[in-house]
């Protein structure tokens, strides 16, 4: 099992790294050429942290908004979005 695992194909890793790179906002903006694995990992960590912050911020705003919404309309809106998309 261990020998199989350590011979992970280097192509697989390269492909995963490049897929990760294509997700990063900076890459999408500048269309950067292939960055190093270390750089991609670092940018990915930063990106995940910023996404976490966004979720936290959106939770704040939703909480504020829903404080003054009535139950039925909130649920109705969600159901409506479900049908819209």
């Amino acid at each position: 099992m261990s020998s199989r695992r350590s011979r992970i194909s280097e192509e697989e890793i390269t492909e995963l790294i490049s897929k990760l790179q294509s997700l990063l906002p900076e890459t999408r903006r500048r269309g950067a050429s292939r960055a190093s694995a270390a750089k991609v990992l670092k940018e990915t960590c930063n990106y995940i942290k910023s996404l976490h912050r966004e979720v936290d911020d959106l939770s704040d705003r939703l909480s504020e908004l829903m404080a003054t919404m009535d139950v039925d309309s909130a649920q109705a809106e969600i159901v409506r979005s479900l049908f819209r998309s």
Partner: protein
Amino acid sequence: MQVTEAFKHAFLKQMLLGFQASAVSTKSMGFQERKNAIKLSADVAMAVARGSRKWTRGLIAGLSEERQNRSFLRLILGEQYESLLKPCHSSWKIPRCKKIVRRSLRICWRKQKKNQSGVLARTLVEKRTQELKRLVPGGKSMDGSSLLDETLDYVLSLRAQVDLMQSLLTTFEASKLRSHSKRRLPERKASYVSK
């Protein structure tokens, strides 16, 4: 690369269930309590919408570590809760994992870097990998390539979570505006533009 329509539907549906279960629309709820309920609903919704993956199991496990979340999780997930918490078969590998991870990472990264060389670069990659393991739910028990695979999947789902929460916010704001204008002009026939 994007999440599927099925994911978006499942997410919104699960959010609705979460809101109902935690009664977020109750006026008596404090701001922080409501915010936590919303965030919890959003995380559960994301995990459920994605299905069974290492990171989704890690996420649910992490959430249920806090006692106050458990009754909510049990309510929302029902039978799924117990099965989602079951440890992965891979848990038996954990004592050996560090050695295997380090070895496989050294082999892969060494071949990967054509322009970089030396201990510094390799240490940097390992350092970043450790940080990534902390950020991705369930990351501690993942090895090299599965960590990358799960990270990719997790980032896509996180992005979708942000987008969907944003669109919920927009939808609620619009609905609020509509109900306000309705109240202000009761005698006129409402002729607002619907978004």
